[in-house]
């Protein structure tokens, strides 16, 4: 069976196609697909954009209101997948197994995010897929102007909105 693909339709920017690695990251993929299926990501923003690092989204609506999310999932960062450029991984709090809906797309090879040990410091961030279409859209997002909002320095000044996230028909 081929891996599932999800399209992120980004307003005014284009479509990013993600291929999800069901074999290596089954729990993360199942979790992500469940959020896609219930429309969680529709009308959310990339709220944190750091060129040379990553672009993070899936948790806030335009205007920075936080969307409620579901249960925390197990961290699959020990699956051998690396946080390389154009891979997609789960964001989380400082607790290793705390990912819910927010994800990020690496826009550089971020080796320091990879799993090194089953400890609070070493767990790393679970890669569960990669960008297979629309890399130029990712490049556009990482280049948007950002500013300080709330505690963060890296919030796009103009919202980068995921209009919809849909599973691509095979």
């Amino acid at each position, binding site marked *: 069976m081929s891996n599932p693909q999800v399209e992120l339709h980004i307003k005014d920017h284009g479509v990013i196609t993600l291929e999800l690695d069901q074999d290596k990251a089954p729990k993360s993929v199942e979790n992500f697909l469940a959020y896609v299926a219930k429309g969680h990501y529709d009308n959310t923003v990339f709220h944190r954009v750091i060129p040379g*690092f990553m672009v993070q989204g899936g948790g806030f609506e335009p205007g920075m209101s936080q969307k409620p999310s579901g249960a925390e999932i197990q961290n699959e960062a020990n699956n051998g997948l690396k946080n390389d450029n154009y891979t997609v991984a789960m964001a*989380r709090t400082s607790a290793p197994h705390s990912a819910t809906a927010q994800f990020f797309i690496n826009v550089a090879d971020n080796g320091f995010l990879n799993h090194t040990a089953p400890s609070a410091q070493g767990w790393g961030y679970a890669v569960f897929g990669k960008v297979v279409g629309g890399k130029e859209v990712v490049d556009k997002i990482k280049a948007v102007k950002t500013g300080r909002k709330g505690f*963060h320095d890296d919030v796009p000044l103009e919202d980068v909105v995921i209009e919809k996230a849909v599973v691509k028909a095979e």
Partner: protein
Amino acid sequence: MTAFAELVAPAGWRTVDLISDLHLQASEPATFDAWQGYLQTTPADAIFILGDLFEVWVGDDAAAEPGFEAQCAEVLRAAAQHRPVFFMHGNRDFLVGAAFAARCGLQLLDDPTVLVLHDRRWLLSHGDVLCLEDTEYLQFRAQVRAPSWQSAFLARPLAERRALARSMRTQSEDRKRSPGMVWADVDADAARAWLRQAGATTLVHGHTHRPGKHALGDGLERIVLSDWDVTAHPARAQLLCLSSAGAQRVDLR
């Protein structure tokens, strides 16, 4: 449950200014200038600083030597000669002590404090302690607010404390290099509980740098102060003015 501190405004006060989160630091002179200009010109009968006036405070002795802290002390002292200036600790400047307050003529406030102005009760807080999701920070807060930690820290030489503050700053910059998720905000249930305990309808706080007004149900609300950064586009230098007419935001830039 202990009662919250209460401050009853003298009958003569018409307007009160609330500011917070200026994060004053030597490397940002423009914000310092805006703050100084504001203090020299405000018509308010009292000024309440609700935390994080300073980006960092390593001890009152820092203001004893010539430098940025001493400069700030002079500005505060001049302002406090004309009207009362109240100071509540934030998560950055929690080490501002009685010695500095006395030198500048500041009156230190508990967090939270109920301000009774024109028969209306306003609950004032920095706000950090209500961000319940930020568990890592709250553990740190409990540690550094303990008198034993503070006396041990303040016993170190000033130069060492300055160096420690710098390295803590770097560590927190490093934390930003992670796809973190918690964007702590004031917990609505905790805010409601505080307001009920205080017999107030409006909580005013800073800390989150997310200025706004949020209804909490049952006629309760919280108003969030803006942080200051006059080099940002658009510039941020804002106060909240309390009067018999209610609360009004005033942009200084």
